[in-house]
């Protein structure tokens, strides 16, 4: 039986790769988008996934969106919390509104969506959640401090939720990509990118497809004994 999966932030580079990979596995997939309507519609048309527009920082919109997804898919077996955004600002230029915005886009969205989706997982006593973090939440990198803070928060969110939901047989894991060749990775200056590659055992940037493969693994039965983990997909740093 195919799974029903909700992927947040599906219109971006990594979200799109995850949607494509899950569709290739035969999953029934819904994804959300906020600004990239054209990309979202193209992805939906290309993959047969279902696109839903929502501002995930707004609890009412999240509730409406999850209701619509359930109406379309019937149920939600698995959730990929991928939505987020970044600002390339040094610490001196981060304003209060930037801090609030980036933490909301990367963490509050994760909380609100999970709160709505997990209700039926708890009731059903089963499910899988994968949260997208970043290597920058674990190691020292030249990245915006508010974004790294949010990505470090993903790890805490994952660990505590896995502990709390363990008794409901809901696995909660995180994936922490290193530098990728698309998405946020395209905002990294060439000099910093070269520095990453020089310290990467794999000797190159990763691809969004390689991260999507790991997400698919963590959602599947092959990972049934993998829980409360944060898997770094970084080529070996």
């Amino acid at each position, binding site marked *: 039986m195919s799974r029903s999966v909700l992927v947040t932030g599906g219109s971006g580079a990594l979200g799109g790769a995850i949607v494509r990979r899950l569709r290739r596995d035969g999953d029934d997939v819904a994804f959300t988008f906020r600004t990239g309507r054209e990309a979202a519609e193209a992805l939906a048309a290309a993959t047969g996934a279902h696109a839903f527009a929502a501002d995930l920082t707004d609890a009412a919109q999240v509730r409406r969106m999850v209701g619509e997804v359930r109406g379309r898919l019937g149920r939600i077996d698995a959730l990929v919390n991928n939505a987020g955004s970044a600002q*390339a*600002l040094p610490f001196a230029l981060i304003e209060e509104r930037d801090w609030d915005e980036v933490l909301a886009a990367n963490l509050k969205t994760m909380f609100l969506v999970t709160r709505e989706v997990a209700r039926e997982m708890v009731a059903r006593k089963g499910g899988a959640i994968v949260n997208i973090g970043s290597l920058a939440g674990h190691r020292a990198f030249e990245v915006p401090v508010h974004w790294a803070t949010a990505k470090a928060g993903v790890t805490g969110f994952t660990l505590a939720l896995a502990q709390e939901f363990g008794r409901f047989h809901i696995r909660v894991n995180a994936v922490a990509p290193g530098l990728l060749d698309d998405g946020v990775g395209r905002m990294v200056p*060439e000099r910093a990118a070269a520095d990453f590659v020089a310290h990467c055992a794999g000797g190159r940037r990763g691809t969004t497809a390689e991260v999507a493969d790991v997400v698919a693994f963590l959602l599947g039965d092959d990972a049934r004994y993998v829980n409360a983990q944060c898997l770094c997909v970084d080529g070996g740093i």
Partner: protein
Amino acid sequence: MSLDPSGAQRTYYETVSMCPTCSELVPGRVVGRPDGVFVARECPAHGPFEGLVCSDTAWFEGLGRFDVEPVRPGHPRATAAAGCPRDCGLCPEHRQIAGTAAIEISNRCDADCPVCLADNRGTFELPVDEVRAMVDSLLAAQGFVDALTLSGGEPTMHPDILEILAALDRPEIGRVVLDTNGLRIAEDDRFLDALARRRVMVSLHYDGSGARRLRGVSAEVQERALARLLRWGIPTAPLVLAVRDVNDGELGTIVASLLTRSPAIQSVVVSLMAYTGANGSRFPGDPRRRLTIPAALELLDGGSAGNLGRRAFIPLPMPNPVCAAIGYFLVMDRELTPLIPLADVDDVVHYLRNMNFARDDGGLERLLRDGVDRVYAHPEAYPDSERLLRKFRDLLCTLFPQGRPLEADRRRAVVEERVKVVYLIQFMDPWTFDSVRLSKCSCQHLMPDGRIVPSCAYYSYHRRLDPRFAPAAAPARGEGA
């Protein structure tokens, strides 16, 4: 350095200078007094002369901080026998590679600028292959050059100008600059279409109300040429010639309005009058009262709300720091924010050492980051620091918009739109000729015979020895007898 017995004058160094009347080379001294720094010399035939080098003695005496260790030429083309500037080629005594190399691709011109540094007799047009060979020869010696300037004569009159530009589109040349009076650009749409497809920056003469007196063309023609370059989106660096008592009162207004006018204007060059060349040596005015860089900076300050003043500039570490100054400006919402005052001067000097144009090597980004941190850490030192930080924030948010990263080329274009450069340059002429200063010159002319000659030596000494400018030289093709 030595003081005269009265203590009112000090001698910084001995040099070789030139008689402004007969152009003979004569021994000279660079001396400082409270009223400025001068090259003093005495011609056996025409008596003593002094030429003003710098109107601010303290500025001159502070230049040591900017006098960085040069990059020496690897392959001298001449021997050091007769002494500077006779041995040019370059000779082993020359201390600096070319930052800007210039090729006079013809000596035909459709204008007759009263200030012209050249000598437009219509006697030659360099074939494309010869231009290519001259550049090959330069690059074989030094591998890379920040800028290659095509001048003349009027280079846009060269029948193969577009082929020459295509031949120079190579990675070892930072930028190709086309130095023009703008007459063709003001009229020829097809030429502009072709220029827009080439990798070129146009250095357009743009002199404000002084256009007619200085260039013999009207300010309206210069303005028309500029407007058309901008309409075609061609990178443009207006070249403003600044002359005492001609257009010095409007310098600040001209430069400030150019910097905020269009994304296509990436830099503005203010060139201070040099009294040399066929026409320039006869231009009316007193070379001893000439504009020098510190005085020009004071003038820039007026008309620019104080944003283009001295604190916004530093002497350019390459070439000799007495020859040029540079300022960086953030342009947002038609406001100019000088960036030099945000930086540690020694860091800027380190970054700019031995280059004429900023390179895309992360150095400028580091300087900006340091500047941001400095304003953040010392808000009391920067008026309106919160607003200043917000400007940088907005710039970065433009460069890195959320959710849709810009391609690197587009990011570079945004930086060029928002971060502008102003250069002040001061060529030497027979009044200020100084072989010691010349020995660190990084603006160098390429000769068809493979020699490389510092531009100031060419303008004031070597051009008259160049057989292409001999009275009996044959006219160029297309020229009447």
